[in-house]
Structure formats: structure tokens, C-alpha cells
């Protein structure tokens, strides 16, 4: 199982699901109507490191974070 957490303004409790790679996470979230507005604009981190490909493998206990558009300062 991996945990998916939603940062900042995304008002959504963490999910846990089975996933062998980020591709599985993408499939699961696309079917989640609440999330569709966010997916296009979110960056993705695995265990707090930003990643660039859906082929990123996941293992049991991994944490996937979704980071919506930022504005510090």
C-alpha cells in the first residue's frame, strides 16, 4: 500500500491504495471527480522528492504527495 497526500489548498484526506508505479496512482485519481480539476496543475513527489515520470516505481509504505500551484513570499 502507498499513501497519497494532498498538500496546501486541496481539501482532501489522504488515500491509501495499491500501486506499483505512479501510473497506477494516475489511473486511480483520474476516476476521482473531486481531483480532476487539480491533476493538470499538480507536481508530484515520492517520499518528498519531486519526480518527473509516471514510470517512477512505488513500494509498500511509499508516500506520494500532490503539490498544487505555489505562491510563497
Amino acid at each position: 500500500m502507498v499513501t497519497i497526500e494532498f498538500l496546501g489548498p486541496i481539501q482532501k484526506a489522504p488515500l491509501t491504495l495499491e500501486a506499483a508505479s505512479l501510473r497506477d496512482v494516475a489511473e486511480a485519481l483520474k476516476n476521482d471527480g473531486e481531483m480532476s480539476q487539480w491533476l493538470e496543475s499538480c507536481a508530484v513527489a515520492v517520499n518528498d522528492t519531486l519526480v518527473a515520470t509516471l514510470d517512477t516505481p512505488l513500494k509498500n509504505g511509499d508516500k506520494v504527495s500532490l503539490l498544487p500551484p505555489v505562491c510563497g513570499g
Partner: protein
Amino acid sequence: MLELYDGALNVPEILTRWYAEESSNNYGAYIPFVGTVREEEGIEGLSFDVYEPILTSWFEAWVAKAAPLGATLKMAHSRGDVLVHESSYIAAVFSPKRRVALETIEAFVEDFKASAPIWKYDLKNGQRLYARDRSTPIEGSGLLGGKS
């Protein structure tokens, strides 16, 4: 050094302490950038969420990038509510020479705006409203939204 505070920053304390910390390290230039909440569009203030693990690694990558130039970086940011005319952000560079300091503060502040995992909300009529139209997707965003 990265410092996070609940609420507004104590700007005099921070600017003075950082100056003192580096006073015997032979830097010729010290440039802090202080960001203050502007009164506009009727807001009472801003509020910030900070995701500390990724902010810390972003900051440490910048420290590593500045080190070969002989420069040192410091940063402070607020969490939670900061009212108008209070300050929420200070970034600073120390370097031996002015050119490195001027170039580094600009690049550091601009990359902060584009990449640091911090979310901003307007405080207006007692509500906390995500400032989506002033926010920037982090580079590489949209990974999960591609056509399948």
C-alpha cells in the same frame, strides 16, 4: 539557515541577528529581500501553508549552489496568518563581492516564487481563499493529468 515562524516575521530581529552571525566571516555584501503583505482588494491579510520537507530540500539545494560562489544564504518565512503591512518572507545572501550577491539574490527570490512549496490564501471577510490566480504550477506539474 531556514527559519519558519507562526505568523508575521520580526524583521528587525532577523535582519540584525543574521548580520551579527556573519559579521566576522569577511563578507563584503549582505542583501536581504523583505516581503511585506500589501493592502489590496480589501484583504485583511494573507495566510500561508508551508510543506517543510520539500522546502528544506529546495533550500539546501540552493545553499549547495551558492557555496562555490563563496556565498551564504538565509531564509525566513511565515506559516498561518500575516496581516497587511506585516512581513512574511525574508531571503538573504552574503557574499565576498557585490556582483555575486546581486545576481544570487535575484535568482534565489525568483526561483523561490516559482518552486517553493508554499501556498498563499487571501484573508477576506473572515474567509481563507486560495490565491489560485496568483499561483504558479511547479515545473513538471501535470504528470498525473496526461492523456491515458
